[in-house]
């Protein structure tokens, strides 16, 4: 029975995430068009709403091309892992009170661990496709993800110190009685935002797929459905990062200055989605405004700016928490 229920959850989650990604791609196009004073897609369906659907159909029906010298197994596995890792991260994220698949008592650790395993898929894709652009993209990506993992995790440790728990649902519940953690941890929030943008390979940190230099980076050789999986993975990762931000810093589904127990659960869902999409909009805004960093600037920024600030933030938070307790 548990297995069937679990599978059902997975199917529901997958369809929900896939629909979200469709909406996100459409949103990306419209936001970029708006920033660039264009119109954006407006031909397929009302207001171009079906444009992404048409694109997905095109990608699914496309011929699957593989470089003859590529490593067959690795080449095949990379896009699957790329999508599965962030997708599985959704399991612990609570969308509303009592609405989430599974609340783990180590939820945050689980999500970060899955995020780290993304590195494998990128390296596999770069190595397996036997292409020099892809190889350089993969190497950059590995360096970038490993270096930004550390400030990413360090910046949220302050939240866990204050909350005293690693369970997502409890963290949100704690924000109901007090204030949102973004008030306590403004520096942590900014660091997390920057590191998460880098972790999701979004511009200005999109070096792994820097299109002006490396054509398409680690997925240069991919086409059709496999490319669609990478595409899906990028947006899923963004969705997970923004959901984490919402849960850890912005009070999850909670509405401020209101008794939340009186409000029906479906409004909570909308509040949650609204917060997530605001953060996603911020990321899109970054992407379409900033130039791309260079690889050594990126490393310097990660190790010399983000990490020291994150550590200082952690130490100060710990000291204050200790002082308040005693």
């Amino acid at each position: 029975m548990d297995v069937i229920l679990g599978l059902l959850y997975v199917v529901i989650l997958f369809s929900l995430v896939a629909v979200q990604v469709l909406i996100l791609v459409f949103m990306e196009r419209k936001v970029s068009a708006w920033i660039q004073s264009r119109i954006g897609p407006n031909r397929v369906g009302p207001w171009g709403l079906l444009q992404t659907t048409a694109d997905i159909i095109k990608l699914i029906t496309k011929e699957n091309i593989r470089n003859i010298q590529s490593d067959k197994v690795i080449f095949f596995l990379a896009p699957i892992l790329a999508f599965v890792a962030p997708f599985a991260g959704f399991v612990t994220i609570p969308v509303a009170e009592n609405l989430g698949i599974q609340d783990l008592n180590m939820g945050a650790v689980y999500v970060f661990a899955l995020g780290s395993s993304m590195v494998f898929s990128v390296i596999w894709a770069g190595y397996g496709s036997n292409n020099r652009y892809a190889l350089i993209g993969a190497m950059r990506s590995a360096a970038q993800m490993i270096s930004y993992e550390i400030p990413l995790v360090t910046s949220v440790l302050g939240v866990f110190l204050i909350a005293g728990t690693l369970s997502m649902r409890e963290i949100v519940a704690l924000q109901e009685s007090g204030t949102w953690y973004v008030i306590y941890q403004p520096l942590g929030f900014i660091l997390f935002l920057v590191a998460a943008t880098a972790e999701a390979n979004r511009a200005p940190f999109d070096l792994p797929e820097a299109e002006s230099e490396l054509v398409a980076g680690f997925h240069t050789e991919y086409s059709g459905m496999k490319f669609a999986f990478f595409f899906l993975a990028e947006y899923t990762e963004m969705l997970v990062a923004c959901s984490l931000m919402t849960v850890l810093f912005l009070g999850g589904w909670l509405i401020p200055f209101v008794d939340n127990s009186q409000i029906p659960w479906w409004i909570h869902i909308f509040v949650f989605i609204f917060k997530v999409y605001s953060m996603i909009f911020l990321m899109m805004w970054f992407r379409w405004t900033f130039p791309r960093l260079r690889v050594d600037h990126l490393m310097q920024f990660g190790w010399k700016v983000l990490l020291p600030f994150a550590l200082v933030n952690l130490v100060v938070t710990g000291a204050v928490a200790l002082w308040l307790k005693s």
Partner: protein
Amino acid sequence: MSEQLTHSASKKAFRKDIPLIDQIPPRKKHILRGLPESELHVEEFLMNIGPQHPSTHGVLRLVVSMEGEVVKSCEPDLGYLHRTFEKISENRTYQQIVPFTDRMDYLGSMNANWGVAAAVEKLASIEVPERAEYIRVIVAELNRIASHLMWMGAFAADIGALTGFVYGFREREMILDMFEEICGSRLTYGYIRVGGVAEDVTPKFIQMVNDFLKILPDRVTDYHDLITGNVIFIERTRGIGAITLDEAISYDITGPMLRACGLPWDLRKEEPYSLYSKFDFNIPAYFNGDCYDRFRVRMDEIMEAAKIVRQALDGLPEGDYKVKKLARNIKPPVGDVYIRQEAPRGEYGVYMESDGSIKPNRVKYRTPSFTNLSILPLAARGWKIADLIAILGSVDIVLGDVDR
């Protein structure tokens, strides 16, 4: 030598409204030219960029050998767009040559047309009416603005700011609309012809130019806000691909690239052709010779070109727009002529040799893209692969102009 050559008038920086950036001391130049000896065993990594690649601006092929991300050597491979225009020109009458030049520098077609027209006119001693000269100046300067705007967008896209690309196209579109109004085409005009221009300007065209000149300063300020002051942009371009003035002279660099090295050499000022001695305009110049200065030179040139258009439009006289009676086949006397003009990308020269028949014996197009590109192997050595793209973008090549 380079210090003596620099113009005294340009010692003060041309733009005064971005003083903060100027106060940052420039990076040490050529710090990476001599590559440090690596203790590790590093294998050379050969990468082929192009001829089909998003940022080679056409069909340029670069064979890059790298150590990690650092470019050790970079060898451009030309000729993918070689369409033998010089040979074709030898087999056409003098008037028939003009449309081919559109296809060479397709972002500055008006300037390319003008070079050939001026060369034939000098060779055959044809007097051009004053109104035609004014119209030529107007369209050539408008085309310079369009070319620089397009370059700005493409350069921003090379750096990674895709939004700049669309903004550059937005204003370029207005200029293309004007050209469509006067000559009916938007890319290959064939408008400036031997003995004048193809059509007279219309009142609607003048109205469009006026409207454009009104909005241009605001838009350029927008670009400065969006791109010039951006920290990442400055980080990506300041000091990158810097060349000294001596290197620039050795490689015959002309145009905005030369002016970014500190020599305010502009043929419109130094050897005024056509009507340029009548107009009041400045030659922007900066001193570091890096990508950032090339960017600033071109952005300033947009405003200077707008100034010239304004003056030319105000002084536009009445009269003919082309020579009334021109022989169907011009037969210039035996001789040769070398015309040099300041095209958007640099010095555009047309060498033409006549043997007394209706066809030239030899036509040579000295195109700025070809000579400016020749410094790329030197300028890119020791920089990262991302910088190579930035340097290549800052050279402002048009592959049709390189390969001819």
